[in-house]
């Protein structure tokens, strides 16, 4: 449960880190959008599992 929660929160943090990396010039636009999408998929998988275990 704690692991799933941690993965969920980290993926959300990743969703925020990706555009910051792009803005700071550390990633190009394609990499940023790919990272954002991947972190989003991880969020949906982990957060759905987290929510269903909680309920």
């Amino acid at each position: 449960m704690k692991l799933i929660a941690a993965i969920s929160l980290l993926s959300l943090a990743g969703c925020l880190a990706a555009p910051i990396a792009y803005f700071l010039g550390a990633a190009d636009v394609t990499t940023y959008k790919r990272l954002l999408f991947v972190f989003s998929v991880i969020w949906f998988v982990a957060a759905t599992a987290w929510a269903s275990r909680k309920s």
Partner: protein
Amino acid sequence: MPGTLSTLARRMDRLYEFDREPVAEARLQAGRRFAGLFAGEHVAATEFVIGAFFVLHGVSARDLILGLLAGNFLAVLSWTLICAPIAVRTRLTLYWYLRKIAGPGMTLVYNIANAFLYCILAGAMISVSATAVGLGFGIRTPELHQLMPNSVGWVVLTLSIGAAFTILAILGFEKLSKFASVCSPWIFVIFLAGAVATFRPLGIHPNLDNLWEVLQTRVWNGVPTPGQEKFGMAHVIFFAWFCNLAMHAGLSDMALFRYARSWKYGLYSAFGMYPGHMLAWMCSGIMVAGVNRQMDPGLMAYQAAGLAGVLAVMLAGWTTANPTLYRAGLALQVITPDWPRWKITLLAGIATSILAVFPVFFLRLLDYVAIYGLVLMPVGAVVFAEHWILPRLGLEQYRAEKHGWLFNWRALLVWVGTLAVCWGMPFHLYFRWLPGYVLAVAAYTVLQYVPAAQRVKAAAPVSGGLP
């Protein structure tokens, strides 16, 4: 006719039977639940459109920030000082409290009006989702001046999305609502991500030294897009304030706050207002500036956040439309009591999908939000007057319930009369609700006071009469 109405009203009572009793002490909820609910509810597809429209209406950066700070503060105060105190004192939903005050007939009319307005809102959200899905099929979003569908592709697309949302709602409304709660924090993050990513194409330096200058010149530069009305700070303040008018001053959120331990829980609405109705609006404003002010939420999100952005617009539209279909279905169930739930949801879904075909509802979303709040506001004013003012004047409360009236005609007259007066007010639509609210409270109080005074006069012995 009265027979039919009272039958319909009885059916409606049965539907809402489960929350007829005031909430018991043991079922009251902690404050963090309210914070979570508000935070989740106020980041929806509408945010993609509203924030972008402020840019198109030529709001300046200073007016926007100050306006949103003030307007959202007023909205939070309205929840805290108008809605929450009545909810906490009565522990009832607006449905049951209004029934005591205005009678079951008026409650029925109110619910159906609410369902109809909700259907239009859901239709607008389907249109917003369609702008995202349409990107994949090369279907162009209608332009600002196009109030009717612009192509067969748009019609097919909106109807298909409407059908998909309806089928999903039929298959399992509750599970989907739980999934929607998973979507909310992510959608908010996508708003932030999209805005931050747009900083670079807008020319904002990594050290942010020119942030304010770019926001003032390239985002909220104070120049409206051709054909759009110029908005100032007052427009922003009033819009942010009345955006959820039906919920706070209109008292719909009594359903929520009847579970609050204290009226001060109204302050938790700030968790919805400032992230959703300030940050998310500002983020969508920045994103629309990144696509040269094109009102196309799908394109805007795709440019700013890629596929994740498209997904966010789709899911935001869907998570708004889903509970709306449920609510509309609930109201329709009164007229069709023998129908199973799936059939009613289907009917609401068909109506909503047809409305979604017409882009007017999402391209005129700001005006629609104003009208939505305005239409339901007088009912909140009537309840406010009945709850706070009548007892202070020594007037009898809840006469509809005590006398078994189907309609409290005075309440109905105030509702219709206020709307008629607001319609004719010689100023901008956004500013009409406040004088309308004051007028409705005063009119209802006077209409209750005058006959009561006459009854007292008639009952008093006449001086100089019989010994």
